[in-house]
């Protein structure tokens, strides 16, 4: 895999507070990288460092193999981002995007229309100050997509959007990633949404990157139990205990057995029960949500 952004041992301190602490992070070309962390965990500081808004105290940032100050500065021109709303309130959607198109030196004037159409803002004439939160978020994404950059950083892109808007943003991100190969780095508080979008996750807490994991590995790690719905719960439990020595189970409120053993061998369970005349109505893997996984990783809800 081609590394598009590589962060090595980066540290940023504000007086006595260490906002980012020896973080190592790798984003590969084509990733949709979900950065997960609570408020004050260091996400925004990390974004600021990547974008060059603040200097690091130590460590190194490599963007598209550029590691010298001058080369990184040029590489950053292939990077776009949406952090909050950076638009002039008196300009319309078209005028705001046109401003950024001119600033970025994108010669094709149709580019403004293209991104506005993509985000369904091409017919909006009113000034930005009269936009709804959803429209502001969409304009932010339109600006980030301007000129089809190699990397787009999105901070809370679905904040304030209705379910339809959230689905639409997800669709656009996935489309741009798939069709144009744009790499995304996204932070979001709506972890269930991030779970549906990201292909790789980084968990950050107190300035430290706790873990980087692919969505496939995360899926494997979060499959925590097998849920069994049977006609005779007592008989099934006796069979599981005596025949398979299964001890980690509980009966949930739907009178289903939640088995924490044999997660990777559901065929063994079904075979045992059916052989012994227990009717099996349901056998499925039950996973943890990304939110639960993150909470477990940072040490429970008391830390959240």
């Amino acid at each position, binding site marked *: 895999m081609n590394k598009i952004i590589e962060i090595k041992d980066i540290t940023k301190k504000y007086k006595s507070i260490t906002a980012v602490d020896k973080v190592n992070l790798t984003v590969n070309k084509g990733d949709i990288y979900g950065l997960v962390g609570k408020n004050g965990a260091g996400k925004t500081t990390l974004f600021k460092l990547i974008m060059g808004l603040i200097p690091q105290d130590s460590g190194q940032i490599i963007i598209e193999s550029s590691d010298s100050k001058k080369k990184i500065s040029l590489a950053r*021109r292939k990077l*776009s981002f949406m952090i909050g709303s950076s638009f*002039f309130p008196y300009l319309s959607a078209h005028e705001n995007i046109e401003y950024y198109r001119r600033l970025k030196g994108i010669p094709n004037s149709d580019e403004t229309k293209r991104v506005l159409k993509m985000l369904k803002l091409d017919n909006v004439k009113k000034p930005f100050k009269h936009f709804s939160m959803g429209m502001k978020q969409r304009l932010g994404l339109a600006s980030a997509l301007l000129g089809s950059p190699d990397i787009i950083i999105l901070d809370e892109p679905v904040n304030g959007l209705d379910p339809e808007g959230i689905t639409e943003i997800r669709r656009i991100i996935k489309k741009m990633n798939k069709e144009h190969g744009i790499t995304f780095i996204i932070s979001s508080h709506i972890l269930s949404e991030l779970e549906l979008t990201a292909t790789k996750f980084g968990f950050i807490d107190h300035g430290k990157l706790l873990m980087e994991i692919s969505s496939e590995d995360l899926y494997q790690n979060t499959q925590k139990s097998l849920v069994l719905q049977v006609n005779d719960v007592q008989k099934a439990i006796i069979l599981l205990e005596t025949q398979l020595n299964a001890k980690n189970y509980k009966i949930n409120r739907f009178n289903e057995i939640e088995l924490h053993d044999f997660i990777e061998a559901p065929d063994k369970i079904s075979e045992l029960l059916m052989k012994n005349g227990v009717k099996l109505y349901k056998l499925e893997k039950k996973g943890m949500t990304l939110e639960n996984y993150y909470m477990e990783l940072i040490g429970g809800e008391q830390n959240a």
Partner: protein
Amino acid sequence: MHNYIRAELYRIFHKKGLYIYFVILSLLYVVSVLMRSPIFSSPVAVSDSYIFALLPFFIGGPLFASIYNDDLNARTLPPIIGFGRSKVFIALCKLLVTIVMVVLHYLLVFVGFCAIHLLLRTGIDHILVSTILEMLIESILLTIGFILVTNIVTYGIQKPTFSIVAYLILCMELISDMVKNILQSSMISNIFGDLTGYTLPRIASRFSEGIAASKFDAMAFIQYLIYLLVAFSILSIVFNKKELEF
């Protein structure tokens, strides 16, 4: 640099509020001319007029707000820096935009002034035009100088309200009088001599007087450039040290 300046001019020229402001200002001026005519056409009367003395306040204020404050309010600087532009680059582009906008607007003031007086038949003559030109040149130099000095505060504090207030205060004679008093104090004058001729308003005045007399006061021009250079250097250092909020 060309792209950034082009983008800045595009968005400033699309700010409808600025047009409305200048239309209202022009109408108020027409009313004042009608009320004061014919005395107003005397060059002496024009020189003494507070209307022209306050041009950096009335013309420079909205321009300053449009060029600098709008960026702080809309938080548009982080995306520009994130795009790989340095803070010094931004400050330099903004200075060039300032010069273009200030010169353009004062030119419009001059054209508008002549047009109004011709239309209202107030008896405009070449002496009056020459006096007005002298005042406008002085105002251009002062406006650019004041904006640059204020930008030390603008980029250092990054609070839009604070920076516009700082600019408007600087435009008032109160500050220059205070500086003059300090420079005239025995503690300063005994050591450095008379420095009152080196204040920004005095330099701008000397230069514009020279132009009115068809002379190019090179010394005043160099002193003015030194002012700009020092102010730009300080604001670059301040801007580089200050983390942008977003």
